[in-house]
């Protein structure tokens, strides 16, 4: 059944405080166990042979020499995995198709990108496994490839999937295309809207694929035993989803796979999908030994999901006084080797911050010879928002209207109808704009070559399937077992805090752990900012169920009607005006006698959480531009975001700061660089430039709390929104600084300097 809960305003003792995270000490002492830290007796090391080509047909694979190498215990290729029909399932980023999943984890007919797995080896040592990879002979028929999304959309472009006809266009096209799917979200009369406009701005934008850049490479350890059972320890954002996918691609019973989520070294959407896991299980099955597989950083960049690069066209019109009359956008997203980019979600995030009568968003999902994209924090939204917030900034500046004022004039509010259907409920967008406007950052003086930019963001946030269990231990302490992986944000702490609040006990009496797939019912991945919202609801329900049992138990022990027993501050107390007053019992006292009065007290919840509250944010950034080198320096940054309720404010600040800096990296220097041969040229942290400490200023945060009416503590979720606005905010700030509108990301020095020179040439020509 689907579960929705109501917000209850009440005095809080624990929620809103800043206790230390339960996983903290292990992490500062080196004791925390990540996937690569697990080992089993007799374990082998597995390694993957990857395609050196961007696009090629596999004519043959000869593994005999590798198999003959002493120390090699198993080799697997496409032959070791069943082909799967088209079948969809929910994953991190909307739906996945098992026909494609099985081909992405191990190439079948063709390799579709540089780094595509073609074989895997398990050997007694890493060096022997590496040697064995060199002995595998793959005969390729190299095919023409296409990397760029606009080129891939051309009818004459090299075709990845001969059987792929563009979905969503009628009538069905008569020839296959790299455009896997086309979608249109429209509302009102666009033409009429543009007619009403006094000012129309139209621009085209391009962004590059960027990687989630988690510091821990994918790693897993699999042990398949002869009774057909498999155990898997892996770094995952969703062990239940990994179990389901492994079961499917290996044709195993779900019950025969037990997945333990290890401590995870960052995910950001990149660890929603299986890569080596099924290979490790297959190698273990074939070698009769446990198999450990750890990706190199190069493999992470070449073969695990970046987010889409994209081409975006935006056209908007508004009246003289700054009222938007029409908004039109086209989003062309790279899906990578297989369909399924985040373009649908991006399409729905494109204009949702505004109350618009006439809107159209066209989204195209385009396959190209790059690794299949994966989710990355607010998948797709930053790309669409970069275009729209840039155009809005230009409209405001051309009309001489303050950019925040302009947004306030058009801001979505409670009751605003979105162009994809539903009406927005209670939201805090206007509040974030007003708090930003009032922030000292917005009025601080700027130095030479400095400029200030503003941009906003929206994310739906989600709920989904969630399981949790709570056990009251014999000493009155509580163990909370969660199915939602704590990918880093500190959700374990937040869950324990909500449970402590409900039970009326100290938070350090509640020990939260993440249960493996055999300890709880199905639980969706940690994605879409659902953790604190959905897992929080489940945790609260387990506590409330336990409280019910505690009241009943005390009623029987004290021989009073259960209605006469109320739960308050960790004690079962007589209700006001109850017939027969009785001595209150603390949780510890009840726990002590629980065994002798009917058994231990526990609570559990298996829900499909509904009622997620949308999140909105407003960013202010000051930049300084070196006109002679094109270098952009982030001078000051302020993030204002409505999170509903900050259960643990320090961890909310951490999400806002971390997400924002990822967005800054996207804006400034991060990008995949491919050669003409379709081979990735920068698969490492030296040339894939994520921000370093000395690149960043402090990131000021302003937490706005407009409670989500559908959560007992008003939680909305906060992880996705912060990455959405930096690209646009920085581009807008650069425009303020040097009067040049940058429409290409990243805004790396060569691109900025080129734009400055082009501008000089233009103004020179004008003069």
């Amino acid at each position, binding site marked *: 059944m689907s579960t929705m809960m109501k917000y209850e305003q009440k005095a809080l003792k624990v929620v809103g405080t800043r206790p230390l995270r339960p996983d903290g000490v292990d992490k500062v002492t080196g004791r925390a166990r990540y996937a690569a830290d697990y080992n089993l007796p007799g374990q082998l090391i597995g390694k993957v042979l990857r395609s050196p080509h961007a696009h090629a047909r596999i004519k043959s694979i000869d593994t005999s020499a590798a198999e003959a190498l002493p120390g090699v215990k198993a080799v697997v290729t496409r032959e070791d995995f069943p082909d799967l029909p088209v079948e969809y399932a*929910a994953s991190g980023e909307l739906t996945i198709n098992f026909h494609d999943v099985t081909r992405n984890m191990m190439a079948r007919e063709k390799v579709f990108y540089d780094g595509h797995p073609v074989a895997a080896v398990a050997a007694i040592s890493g060096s022997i496994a590496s040697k064995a990879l060199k002995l595998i002979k793959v005969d390729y028929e190299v095919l023409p490839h296409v990397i760029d999304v606009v080129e891939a959309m051309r009818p004459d472009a090299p075709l990845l999937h001969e059987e792929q006809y563009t979905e969503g266009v009628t009538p069905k096209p008569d020839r296959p295309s790299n455009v896997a799917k086309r979608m249109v979200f429209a509302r009102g009369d666009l033409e009429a809207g543009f007619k009403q406009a006094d000012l129309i701005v139209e621009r085209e934008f391009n962004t590059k694929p960027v990687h989630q850049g988690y510091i821990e490479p994918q790693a897993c350890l699999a042990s398949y035993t002869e009774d057909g059972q498999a155990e898997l320890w892996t770094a995952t954002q969703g062990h239940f989803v990994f179990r389901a996918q492994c079961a499917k691609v290996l044709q195993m019973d779900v019950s025969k796979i037990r997945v333990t989520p290890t401590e995870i070294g960052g995910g950001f959407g990149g660890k929603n999908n299986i890569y080596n896991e099924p290979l490790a299980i297959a190698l273990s099955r074939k070698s009769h030994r446990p198999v450990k597989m750890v990706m190199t950083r190069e493999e992470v960049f070449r073969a695990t999901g970046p987010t889409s690069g994209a081409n975006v066209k935006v056209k908007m019109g508004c009246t003289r006084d700054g009222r938007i009359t029409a908004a039109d956008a086209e989003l062309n997203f790279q899906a990578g080797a297989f369909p399924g980019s985040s373009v649908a979600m991006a399409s729905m995030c494109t204009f949702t911050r505004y109350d618009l009568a006439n809107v159209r968003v066209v989204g195209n999902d385009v396959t190209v010879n790059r690794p299949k994209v994966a989710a990355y924090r607010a998948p797709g939204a930053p790309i669409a928002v970069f275009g729209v917030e840039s155009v809005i900034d230009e409209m405001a500046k051309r009309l001489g209207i303050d950019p925040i004022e302009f947004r306030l004039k058009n801001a979505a509010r409670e009751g605003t109808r979105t162009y994809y259907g539903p009406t927005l409920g209670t939201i805090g967008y206007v509040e974030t704009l007003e708090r930003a406007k009032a922030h000292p950052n917005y009025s601080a003086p700027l130095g030479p070559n400095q400029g200030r930019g503003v941009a906003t963001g929206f994310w739906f946030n989600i709920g989904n399937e969630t399981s949790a269990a709570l056990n009251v231990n014999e000493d009155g302490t509580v163990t909370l077992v969660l199915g939602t992986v704590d990918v880093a944000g500190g959700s374990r702490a937040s869950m324990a805090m909500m449970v402590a609040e409900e039970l009326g006990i100290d938070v350090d009496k509640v020990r939260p752990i993440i249960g493996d797939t055999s300890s709880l019912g199905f639980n969706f991945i940690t994605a879409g900012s659902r953790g604190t919202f959905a897992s929080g609801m489940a945790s609260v329900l387990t506590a409330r169920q336990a409280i019910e049992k505690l009241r009943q138990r005390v009623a029987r022990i004290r021989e009073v009607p259960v209605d006469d027993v109320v739960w308050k501050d960790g004690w079962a107390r007589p209700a006001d005006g109850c017939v027969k007053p009785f001595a209150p019992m603390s949780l510890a006292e009840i726990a002590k006698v629980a065994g002798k009065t009917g058994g231990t007290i526990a609570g559990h919840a298996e829900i499909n959480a509904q009622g997620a509250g949308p999140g909105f944010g407003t960013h202010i950034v000051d930049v300084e531009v070196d006109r002679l080198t094109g270098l952009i320096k982030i001078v000051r940054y302020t993030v204002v975001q409505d999170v509903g309720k900050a259960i643990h404010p320090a961890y909310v600040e951490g999400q806002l700061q971390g997400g924002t800096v990822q967005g800054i990296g996207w804006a400034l220097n991060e990008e995949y660089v491919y050669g003409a041969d379709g081979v990735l040229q920068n698969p490492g942290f030296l040339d894939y430039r994520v921000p370093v400490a000395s690149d960043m200023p402090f990131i000021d945060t302003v937490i706005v709390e407009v409670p989500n009416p559908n959560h007992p503590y008003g939680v909305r979720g906060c992880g996705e929104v912060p990455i959405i606005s930096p690209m646009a905010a920085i581009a807008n700030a650069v425009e303020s600084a040097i009067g040049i509108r940058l429409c290409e990301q990243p805004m790396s020095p060569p691109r900025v300097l080129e734009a400055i020179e082009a501008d000089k040439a233009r103004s020179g020509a004008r003069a």
Partner: protein
Amino acid sequence: MATISLSSNLIPYTCGDTGFELEVANVRQLFAALGERYPGLQTHLDNDIAVAIDGEIYQDALLQPILSNSEVFLFPKVAGG
């Protein structure tokens, strides 16, 4: 009868229909009726469609009640990173 509206990205699968009125008690009945009327919509109903009932969004909630005066929107499911 409940008022049913489809987000425009679904129109290719409904022969151009954008909305209609329907007597259904819950989402499961709604999806069944739609699947019957628009076979092309079935995969999407099975996998990637969310509903908004009187302003509240539901994903994977087949048993969610729909009232006779409910306003219902169908649009793509969302997830995230």
